[in-house]
């Protein structure tokens, strides 16, 4: 487990997730417990299909658990309404997925600022902030490019910038370099760690990449639906 803290940023207790399909039932997570302190980085590793992405989805409020609690910054997100959960995803969490998941009808800049468009900040200020973030990820010359005009590495960098636009305290990355070649993977990896450090964020990263995992403060392994120290 991560270093014990009296007030962890993320606190998970007895988390379980069972998928039911007709008469078949699959228990992916059972009795998962985790505490992540603010400002730390945690890697979760494990075999394919062991439930890493499911766990990340539950922490990020993309899914609801069958049992247990996920408390982030003192709020039990499993008890939130759909509307409040949307607000949580918007303000408290930034996601970077294995696939970039950019909206193809929006430019790089628009993709970055779209989470912040749900807030009240003026469009001018938003665009300015989006431009700064894109410059930070090295895409100052590609702001108005459409996703299809960007390379794989560039798309993933746009996705990183989008994850940070609302300055969320928690960054969740699911195999963020899994779809990239070695060179681009290292670039995105460096970028993630640099930005997390520069912006003082907490990051939980799911990965198969032992090199990437080794750069985190804490490493955990998910096996048999249970989280163990890696």
């Amino acid at each position: 487990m991560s270093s014990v803290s009296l007030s962890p940023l993320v606190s998970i207790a007895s988390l379980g997730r069972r998928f039911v399909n007709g008469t078949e039932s699959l228990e992916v997570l059972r009795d998962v417990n985790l505490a992540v302190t603010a400002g730390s980085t945690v890697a979760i590793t494990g075999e394919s299909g062991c439930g890493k992405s499911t766990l990340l989805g539950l922490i990020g409020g993309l899914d609801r658990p069958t049992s247990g609690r996920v408390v982030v910054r003192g709020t039990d997100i499993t008890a939130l309404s759909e509307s409040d959960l949307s607000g949580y995803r918007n303000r408290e969490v930034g996601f970077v997925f294995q696939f970039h998941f950019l909206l193809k009808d929006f430019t790089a800049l628009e993709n970055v600022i779209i989470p912040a468009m749900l807030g009240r900040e003026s469009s001018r200020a938003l665009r300015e902030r989006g431009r700064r973030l894109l410059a930070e990820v090295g895409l100052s010359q590609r702001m108005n490019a459409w996703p299809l005009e960007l390379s794989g590495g560039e798309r993933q960098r746009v996705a990183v910038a989008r994850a940070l636009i609302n300055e969320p305290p928690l960054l969740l990355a699911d195999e963020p370099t899994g779809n990239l070649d070695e060179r681009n993977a290292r670039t995105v990896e460096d970028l993630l760690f640099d930005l997390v450090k520069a912006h003082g964020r907490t990051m939980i990263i799911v990965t198969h990449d032992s090199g990437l995992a080794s750069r985190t403060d804490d490493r955990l392994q998910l096996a048999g639906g249970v989280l163990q120290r890696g």
Partner: protein
Amino acid sequence: MNARFIFFLGRRMLRGRGGTARYLRGAVAGIALSLVPLIVVMEVSTGMIDGIMARLLEVGTYHLQVSLPPDIALPKLLGMASSVATVRDVVAVVPERQGTGMLIGARGAAGVSIRCVPPDIFRVDAGFRSLVAITAGSPDLSRDDGILLSSALAGTLGAVTGDTISALTTYGGDMSGPPRLTPLRVTGIYETGYQELDKNLAYASLAAAPHILSPRASRTLLGVKVRDPFANLLPVEKEIAAAAGGDARVASWDEIEYARLASFRTTKALLLFIMALVVIVASVNVSSSVLMIIFERRHDLGILKSVGAGPRSLSVAFLFAGFSTGFLGAVGGVAAGLLVAVNINGVIAGLEWAVNRVLGLASLLWSTVNPSAAAFGPFTVFNSAYYLKSIPIRIEPGEVIAAAVATLLLSAVASYLPAARAARTRPLDILRKV
């Protein structure tokens, strides 16, 4: 819910670089095309019904009829007319005797309704004057032997102005008496534009009525025109009855033409119902388009939900796209529909011209194969024997706005239902499937 986000997202759905926008553009075209016949039917039928009713009211039945004893003396009839003319809201009173007979001309004969009216009817009755157009001769009925024929009737009889024709009428009260043959001189030929009125109607002088029509085989009445025939006529009916005296029976135009009016209204309602079904189908098309967009953009939905877009915001964004689709379709459909409706006479004439050119060509080709074959056509959209010669157009803004608003609401509802359902899906369920 954030209006900026909703507007931004909805606009991109309509104008998106991806192929999904084509579904909404297709739906816009579908709605517009379905609205065109609705608007055309609505406005043309309104114009047609109004046109026919105007002719029936102004030329046929009058606004009110005061039925009088058939043997009433002419001086008394004229006195009653003067008396009724003083009633409030009455603008014209026409004493008239009506009967049936047969007109015999050089080329043929026709059974007609003969209406004996005062020679100054064109001066006294502005509504009559506006709809009865003299196409040859003059409207002069000052001569006792003068008669006005409709152009259709003149054609049937082979009569032109100045010709003498004969009126054959029965003179016995039970139609069994000896026939009377009265020579009449055609002073003018007219048209009302409504063939049903024109084909069997002739006007003679009221002074000649006792010579042509037997009092026992005809009707005597006062035709009354009021300021507003569509207002409640009951008060004025009572005043007219009082002014006309005890024997008079007053009937309004909607009592006299009730069956015809009900038939028109029913026909229009049925036509509108059928056209409304077309609009509903087109609106369902919006729902299908939104469903297709949701299907093709399901991963966009997942992404948007993952970054914090709530179910309500997403539903409203799709609602905005559907509403915009309905709006654009309604604007296009209403504009195109009004354009066709306003030019309906030209459109029909053009259609008939084009079809008849094709039929003419086909006849020519067919005659080379079969020289004894009859020519095809002619093709007509409306048989003018039953309708107006030319369709008067009257745009009813209320009807047009109602059709457009109903289309908008249908489109909005049709797009909201699938969007609301999609927006409730959990983001991870969507993202896992990409």
